[in-house]
């Protein structure tokens, strides 16, 4: 992973207090490019974190830099950052095109350049046909897409997206997720907050889990899950004759629990050492010539991690 601060979003011991109310406390993060999801219950500090990295709030303590730029340098910062806020707010008379172009002009582009760039971006989001219509008459999904167009139009390397999938129908969600993947793979930072955990799973290269103003976990989700030794990983194994395999596994130190399925076609195991477990399974398969149908962890997704780290807190 790059350690060049010009490629990272860095939080160094950052705290933000609203009077006596805690926003976030002593947060240190090093966020690489790619899609990073912020996950946590309401009031956990996700929005505070986003507002700090977009320069809308300033930290009470600590330092933040976004790709080498301090967040108290708005002129440079806002060229780097595209922000898609959650509320649907538009100038009442604005059309899709004038909305996106207007905000590009605020970024310093001339009128003609802003117009051309706005047209290109709107086209990229599949809204060309509606570009001349008033945003007030757009559907929820169209408004969400025009907000994304506004955030991406100046082609920033960092995109901060607050609940960007809200209100989108399944087709539009799939399209937007594909766009996010393309943008993320293009070397951008995409910071996404979402409550929809299975979409976070689909989307993210890494997650930041927050609770009560603290970062409770960060990294790629399998890595985070692997470090949660208090909660053994649950794995389902399905095969025609599971007993010999179960017999070999049950004596192993890494397996804490094993239950045969009622139909006799598999078993359910818990392990604190997934790698050791998989090695044992592999050895057994090779030595005994077993045919496995499925070996699948069932609680290594964001939902399960969220439940263990935050749901039980």
């Amino acid at each position, binding site marked *: 992973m790059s350690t060049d601060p010009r490629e990272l979003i860095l939080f160094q011991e950052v705290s933000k207090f609203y009077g006596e109310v805690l926003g976030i406390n002593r947060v240190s993060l090093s966020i690489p490019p790619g899609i990073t999801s912020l996950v946590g219950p309401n009031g956990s500090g996700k929005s505070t974190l986003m507002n700090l990295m*977009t320069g809308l709030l300033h930290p009470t303590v600590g330092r933040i830099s976004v790709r080498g730029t301090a967040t108290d340098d708005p002129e440079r910062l806002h060229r780097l950052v595209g922000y898609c806020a959650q509320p649907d707010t538009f100038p009442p008379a604005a059309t899709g095109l004038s909305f996106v172009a*207007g905000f590009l002009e605020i*970024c*310093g582009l001339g009128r003609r*350049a802003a117009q051309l760039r706005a047209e290109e971006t709107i086209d990229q989001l599949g809204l060309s046909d509606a570009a001349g219509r008033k945003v007030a008459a757009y559907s929820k999904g169209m408004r969400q897409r025009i907000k994304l167009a506004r955030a991406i139009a100046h082609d920033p390397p960092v995109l901060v997206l607050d609940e960007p999938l809200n209100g989108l129908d399944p087709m539009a969600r799939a399209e937007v997720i594909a766009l996010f993947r393309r943008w993320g793979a293009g070397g951008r930072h995409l910071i996404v907050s979402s409550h929809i955990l299975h979409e976070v799973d689909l989307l993210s290269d890494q997650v930041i889990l927050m609770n009560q103003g603290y970062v409770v976990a960060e990294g790629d989700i399998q890595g985070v899950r692997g470090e949660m030794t208090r909660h053994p990983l649950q794995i389902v194994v399905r095969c025609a004759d599971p007993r010999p395999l179960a017999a070999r596994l049950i004596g192993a130190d890494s397996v804490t629990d094993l239950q045969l399925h009622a139909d006799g076609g598999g078993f359910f195991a818990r392990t604190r050492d997934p790698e050791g477990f998989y090695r044992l399974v592999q050895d057994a398969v090779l030595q005994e010539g077993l045919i496995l149908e499925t070996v699948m962890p069932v609680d290594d997704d964001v939902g399960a991690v969220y439940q263990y780290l935050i749901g039980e807190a």
Partner: protein
Amino acid sequence: MAVYERRYEPYQGPRRPVGGRAWVISRFAWDDFARSRLFLASLVAGAFVPTLGLLVVYLHHNAQALDVLNLPISELIRIDGSFFYLLLWPQHWLALWMALVVGPGLITRDLTGVALPLYFSRPLSRRSYLFGKAAALMALLSAVTWLPVLLVWLFQASLGGRSWAGDSLDILTSIMVSSLAWILLLTSLSLAISAWVRWTPVARLFILGLVSVPSAFAMAVYGITDRPWGLVFAPMLLVRDLRFSLMEDSLSQIGTAMRGGFPSLSAPWTLAALGLWTALGFLALMSRVKALDVVR
């Protein structure tokens, strides 16, 4: 770890200076004004009195037209300070009306819609944002106050000759200074109230109350103390006083009669008091407009 290939292309072309970006905010505001029929009707109504003024000036310099109308010149109002006062006075009332129509929505809508993070996540400062909003309102108020009356003054100056223009510079000063002071005051108060009072009808009442109610207080102070200092609390009377005092030498009997027995401060004191009101309005505004409205 994935290997990322940089595929985005940030804009590398020329950029307009920071100060110029505020006009985008003004443009959004103008587009918004144009949606109000009441506003458009007021704008059209604003042309009525100045058009009459232009007609009177034209008749003064066109004997043929007077003959056709069978109108002796002595029956036309004289073109002096009083004439311009009569033109300026309704226009200033109209400016108040227009500030009431469009002012309260200017910032309220952005605050209630949580739009400020949108603006301030761009390279746009609070000052630029407020300048953009204020410029939109000031341009509109200019269009119904000093601009049309100045046009009448220039028309008269072109027909009346250099000597008239030279002798009437105090009228020009009164038109410009009193109008600009009034515009600045209305802009700062209506934007400040728009930022603090979110319910538009109540915001309108507040604006109206702030500019008019203190007049009664000022008159009461005058009645009790026989001193004009109560005027400091009455911005509407201050502007009225400014209109009169700056063209005092050019007022005929009509103007003097209109001025009546109202108390009066000297022009520098009047300007200082109006400046204080305007500054207080802008301070109240700055304290309210923030990127995020944090509820503790």
